[in-house]
């Protein structure tokens, strides 16, 4: 059963009708509905193409948060071999909002780190909806440090609404953990490639998205604040999230123009959740190309060019 987004309602109606026809025909051998159902399929496909060709920024946020969108765990399982999870920050706890460990990408050993949101009620609670606590960032820092010492490239998969706003998280230094993790990103002498696969939520994303290369899926978003949060502060009305999403310029396309995103990875028609396998393959192709691009660079150059990339941001603006 597909989960339709609110703006996909007309599509749900058409696909529902086609399904109904076929169900009726299954119960009645005399009925031939295929021509009619196929016409509806065609209509649905055209509509899907139209809807996704011009997704508004808010609709992109909805697609990026789609519950059936492939998540970190799906990518790790499909992209890598020998994935060996490594747990814990060695101080307080293991944070399951952050997946991390050693793995091979086409035989090449790498360190992979990512936010995992979970796919059902239980796993969402275990994963805390992809909202990490300080332990998660400290684990990421530890793994980046290890990768640096053993010369392994780091691949990070970004998908978080933001860092967890909780009492314990604050008491244990959420800010400091994020700051140190970002600092580590800027210090390691190995390639760091980040892919925003869903939501890049503020500081919780920056903490390990400060890479030599930052790629984004076509309908992924990356923002300083959620549209709802921005709307409630600047419009004093959380329901103005459409306007806020528009104003924040948080799409992969806008971020590419600003130089924040280096590469946009195309999604299949109707978004990543309609064909996860195709999406994951596209991410594989992009990751290999981005890593190849950094092959042979010295430690010093990797660090220097990464820092310069961020220092130079802000020289380009967007058209009105």
């Amino acid at each position, binding site marked *: 059963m597909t989960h339709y987004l609110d703006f996909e309602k007309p599509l749900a109606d058409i696909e529902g009708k086609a399904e109904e026809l076929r169900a009726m025909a299954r119960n009645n051998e005399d009925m031939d509905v295929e021509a009619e159902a196929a016409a509806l399929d065609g209509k649905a496909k055209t509509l899907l193409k139209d809807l996704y060709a011009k997704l508004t920024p808010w609709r992109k946020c909805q697609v990026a948060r789609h519950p059936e969108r492939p998540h970190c765990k799906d990518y790790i399982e499909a992209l890598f071999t020998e994935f060996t999870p490594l747990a814990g920050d060695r101080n307080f706890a293991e944070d399951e909002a952050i997946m991390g460990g050693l793995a091979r990408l086409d035989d090449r050993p790498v360190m992979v780190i990512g936010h995992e949101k979970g796919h059902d009620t239980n796993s969402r609670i275990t994963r805390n909806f992809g909202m990490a606590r300080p332990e998660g960032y400290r684990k990421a820092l530890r793994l980046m440090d290890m990768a640096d010492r053993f010369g392994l490239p780091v691949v990070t998969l970004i998908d978080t609404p933001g860092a967890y706003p*909780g009492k314990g998280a*604050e008491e244990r230094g959420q800010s400091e953990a994020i700051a140190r993790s970002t600092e580590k990103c800027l210090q390691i002498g190995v390639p760091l490639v980040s892919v925003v696969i869903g939501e890049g939520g503020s500081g919780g994303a920056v903490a390990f998205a400060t890479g030599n290369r930052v790629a984004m899926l076509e309908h992924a978003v990356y923002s300083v604040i959620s549209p709802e949060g921005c709307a409630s502060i600047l419009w004093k009305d959380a329901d103005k999230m459409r306007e806020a999403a528009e104003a924040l310029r948080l799409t992969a396309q806008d971020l590419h123009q600003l130089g924040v995103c280096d590469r946009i990875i195309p999604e299949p028609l109707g978004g990543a959740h309609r064909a996860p396998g195709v999406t994951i393959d596209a991410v594989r192709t992009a990751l290999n190309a981005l890593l190849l691009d950094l092959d042979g660079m010295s430690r010093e150059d990797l660090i220097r060019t990464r820092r310069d990339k961020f220092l130079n941001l802000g020289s380009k603006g967007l058209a009105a």
Partner: protein
Amino acid sequence: MNWITNYVRPRINSIFSRREVPENLWSKCDDCGTMLFHREISDNLNVCTNCGHHMHITPRDRFLALFDGGVFNELAVPEPLADPLHFRDQKRYPDRMKAAQKASHEKEAMLVAAGEIGRTPIVAAAQDFSFMGGSMGMYVGNAIIAAAQEAVKLGRPLVLFSAAGGARMQEGILSLMQMPRTTVAVQMLKEAGLPYIVVLTHPTTGGVTASYAMLGDVQIAEPNALICFAGPRVIEQTIREKLPEGFQRAEYLLEHGMLDRVTDRRKMREELIVITRMLMGMSPATWGDLPPPGPEDLKPEPNAALDDTAK
């Protein structure tokens, strides 16, 4: 990346702003409500003499009290693009900027200066909460980078006073990118072996806390300053429980190991002098009234205060 160091020509109001305070006017303490002479407030760096509440102080007033004889050279900050996203909420971003500039007589939310404190040469940066909530946009990022580069060039410590509600939403992702940018600035200081002292003032929250404001060699806060990543209201909404008294205040963070010290604003200058001089391997400071700073003051000097205590 190369910035050309540029100092701003001294401004008349920077010399007279503290004197503009009329002698005969009273103000109420934000906290205890005691009526205080304006003069009394400014003489105490906007700290209430009745209850010790630390009220807002502008970066310019802070620097006038911090630097020897109130003398400092303001550093010019490289101009970022104005309104890179053409941001508009209920107001246009350039209109919000103009209003903030008019109200504060300042260009932006951070002031950077070089000067001496107790004859200790430093570079200082201070964030202005009254300017659009002190929010961190490209200008603030450029200011911190310029401050770090100047400190490295001159071989001085950087003292940074933070105050911000977080990132500047009107600059969207570019404001978020100031987290890595300012982190690079801190790394420049660390690689040059120079001290980076952060003084967290009320309030320091969001992306500011999660980057340069938490990366100091020494972390000092003013009393009762709110210091957090997520604000108390957001947390209460998330966990649906009441937070304990003093949660996310300076003293609470000190107790939880997140700060080195909580220091009264009136003692801050002395403390900064003591700490920076030790970290820079300089002799103990000379206290008391000193003649105006001159070039010979950069040399280590004999210490009168030490002789006194030896008696």
